[in-house]
């Protein structure tokens, strides 16, 4: 009944490795589903919970709001265009992104920390009770810090590796990917510091840490699967 948590900064390959480990060991794989389950418990859109984890205003969100605002402006000025990518965007300087941002936004509603953390705890403990799962991030390694039959894996990777991952996966330009990586990493640090008073790269919170700048994903998955063998033996 092993449960494996894998934590790492965005772009380090945690999702890919997690899927490979789950496939290899025939385990359930839980990534954003963690949040969608917590959202169901709280009865609020998942964006509310994601906003708790990613409180730093993300570039992509800003871009989304920027596009939205442009659409509204275009609509008001009678400029028609294809939804989402209407004419007029090219006429605004990039610094307008910042002008258009504000606190919160999107569907995020107010959610108090206690309710949030209770929902997160419930999802993590339910998954642990069910067993046979690979869980990606969301502080699961802290919630299940001392849980039985659980392996906690930390990943790290140099900035250039993470930027390249984002460029390949999200089709970002290099600078855009770098901003995204930096912002989300800051948000991740804030999230873990706020709720568990820990830094995500602190090795003592994991059974092992793997440097994805020095190892390919296949090898990392095999190492984790091998280490998980100790949990069932």
């Amino acid at each position: 009944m092993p449960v494996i948590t894998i934590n790492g900064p965005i772009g380090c390959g945690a999702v890919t490795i997690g899927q490979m480990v789950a496939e290899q060991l025939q385990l359930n794989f839980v990534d954003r589903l963690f949040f969608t389950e917590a959202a169901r418990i709280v009865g609020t859109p998942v964006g509310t919970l994601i906003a708790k984890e990613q409180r730093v205003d993300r570039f992509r969100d800003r871009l989304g709001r920027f596009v939205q605002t442009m659409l509204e402006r275009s609509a008001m000025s009678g400029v028609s265009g294809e939804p989402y990518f209407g004419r007029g965007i090219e006429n605004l300087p990039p610094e307008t992104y910042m002008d258009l941002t504000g606190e919160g936004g999107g569907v995020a509603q107010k959610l108090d920390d206690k309710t949030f953390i209770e929902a997160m705890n419930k999802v993590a403990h339910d998954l642990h009770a069910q067993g046979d799962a690979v869980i990606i991030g969301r502080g699961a390694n802290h919630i299940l810090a001392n849980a039985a039959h659980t392996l906690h894996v930390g990943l790290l990777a140099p900035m250039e590796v993470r930027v390249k991952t984002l460029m390949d996966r999200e089709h970002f330009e290099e600078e855009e990917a770098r901003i995204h990586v930096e912002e989300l990493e800051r948000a991740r640090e804030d999230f873990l510091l706020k709720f568990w008073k820990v830094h995500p790269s602190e090795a003592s919170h994991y059974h092992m840490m793997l440097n994805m700048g020095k190892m390919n994903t296949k090898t990392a998955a095999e190492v984790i699967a091998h280490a998980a063998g100790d949990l069932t033996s």
Partner: protein
Amino acid sequence: MFPEVTLVTPTRDDIQRMADWLSDTEVNTVWYGVGTDGKPLHTSYLPEAVLAGGESEWDHVFNDDNRTIYSVYSEAGEHIGEGQLAVEWPLLEARADLLIGRKDLWHHHYGTSALIGLLDHAFGPLGLHRVWVDVPEYNEPGLQMCQHVGFVMEGHMRKTHHKNNEWFDSSVLGLLSEEYPRRRAKLMETAVT
């Protein structure tokens, strides 16, 4: 370029065609299979039961605020399939289901076009925050199509999908409103080139 499709309110003729398509083993095998009575299963409603029922049964299925069912029509004006959005309003999310019943149009991107139509509607007029799909392991083309459109693998659960007395793995993939514009744009770029 992706083929043009339109999503419209179903007619009784459309639902009869759905019943015909679903009775084809090749179609229901990639869908929900058949029930213990040997009749093909469908999501949300059973076409034959709706056709046999009266107006109230029809209204119950097709005028439901929590579930929108569309017939998919090709550019040539032919009915080719069905799309559904089952909405959970408190969560601002919907589960999407899509079936292209015309087998001769499989693998010609009609599913992709119809899925984009569903997403445009979900994130546009309906104002939803998340759309998700549950794809069983035996529908690999469906999984690839959803990922191609921009859905993210949120979880993969072992032996949770039951069909024809067998249990199958299934993948839950989701797409958020803030993720959709960029991915849609990239998809359209690839379609042009």
